[in-house]
């Protein structure tokens, strides 16, 4: 069901944990739907993401996308981090099963939420960053009987 990359990031997730006094923290998802992602970013004075960590409640894909997303933003500028889309996360994981695509959207959203938190704390505006929605659960197509 999952690619080897997804299994690797699930079994050996990178960057699990918290960052004390993080520059920005974003929590997205909905426990009702079974996924919550929290991403912590440490951003230095030059606007470089020095560190990223995560905590996730969710399935194998949710853990793997969190792990990959944190890997992808580390060392990036804020603008580059903003470009880490769900597609980029999925590609880096060699794809996800269709029912798990929403996990990658959640990862993208969690990064955006953390960046938004950073921007608010520092009273800055990050160009191209919209206020994240905290619940991105999609409406599933109704099954036909």
């Amino acid at each position, binding site marked *: 069901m999952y690619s080897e990359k997804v*299994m690797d990031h*699930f*079994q050996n*997730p990178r960057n*699990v944990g*918290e960052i004390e006094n993080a520059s920005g923290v974003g*929590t997205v998802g909905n*426990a*009702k*739907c*079974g*996924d*919550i*992602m*929290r991403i912590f970013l440490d951003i230095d004075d030059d606007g470089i993401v020095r560190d990223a960590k995560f*905590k*996730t*409640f*969710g*399935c*194998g*894909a*949710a*853990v793997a996308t969190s792990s990959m997303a944190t890997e992808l933003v580390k060392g990036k500028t804020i603008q580059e981090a903003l470009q880490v889309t769900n597609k980029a996360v999925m590609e880096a994981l060699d794809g996800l099963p269709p*029912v*798990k695509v929403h996990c990658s959207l959640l990862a993208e959203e969690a990064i955006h939420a953390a960046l938004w938190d950073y921007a608010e704390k520092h009273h800055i505006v990050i160009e191209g960053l919209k206020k994240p929605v905290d619940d991105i*659960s*999609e409406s*599933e197509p109704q099954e036909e*009987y």
Partner: protein
Amino acid sequence: MIYLDNAATTKTAPEVVEAMLPYFTEYYGNPSTVYSLGNTAKKAVNEARRTIAEAIGAKQEEIYFTAGGSEADNWAIKAAAEACAQKGKHIITTKIEHHAVLHTCQYLEKQGFEVTYLDVDQDGLVDPEAVRAAIRPDTILISVMYANNEIGTIEPIAQIGAIAKEKGVLFHTDAVQALGQVPLNVDELSVDMLSASAHKLNGPKGIGMLYIRQGVKIRSFVHGGTQERGRRAGTENVPGIVGFGAAVRRAVKRMEEKAAKEIELRDYLIGRIQAEIPYCRLNGHPVRRLPGNVNFAFQFIEGESMLIMLDMKGICASSGSACTSGSLDPSHVLLAIGLKHEIAHGSLRLTLSEENTKEEMDQVVEELKKIVQRLREMSPLYEDFVKKQKA
């Protein structure tokens, strides 16, 4: 490997396979033919039918073979609804039925039928008096499962059956999880129809049956031949039927011993999990429960992650989390017993067989402890909970 998903399917018993084999290559004749090759197959089909009928206290001619439990459920509900539509269009069932029943009822709702889905209590029990209260003059069918496939709760079928009989309403029970696990008698239960499947009791996949009480008028399910008294046409799955018969014979013979062993293992496993893993909840009735069923919800973590990690340790289990169902909602059964969504997502079902050992249970608990802890360390819900505890 430790296999703990016997409610999903079971290993076909070697003696069942052995009983089936000659009917593939030696006695492959069509039971409907006149020559003796076909007659041998016909005799074997009838013998299996007799074995199964005896096991549930039915007559041989009341057993109709189907391709499985889902087909039997579909047939019972659709064909009964169609046959009784003149009398009324109201059906009573419960919120915890298998999808083979629920989705069939939802289909019928689209055809103009009205369905009452009864609530269950926190252990998953249906109240027979709630069934009585739901019966209306236009009620044509009641369908309540014998035992739940997820949480293992055994329903008061005899009491519900007595009410249905008193009110003159057809009564169907989905006994897919029960046949071969607990004693069943169609007269004591007052059921008019009963569904079962072979692969849940160490028989082959692809074969099941519907018991239809003599005199009950429901429509034929498959047209095109005289097989199964014209109600379910098509050349019989002879090896499957023979295997089903062999599996039932085997299950009946060892039922008591098997149940005793499974209950001992089950309660041992439940006890250790409750004692050693914090923030968990046993789902299903503590006593009125299938011998091999263990179902827990672990707070702050999600089921699919648990399953993958258990699989990495060679343990096969299942979960009622949304991620395992392909939708965003967790199991309808867990929601019906009152679990919150986020707790239902953290459910784990372990269904035992008599082949499991105490050593395996110990190994499962040890692995599970590590897995639950690891996932909790990763969980923002647990982080929030711990912070709240400290505050």
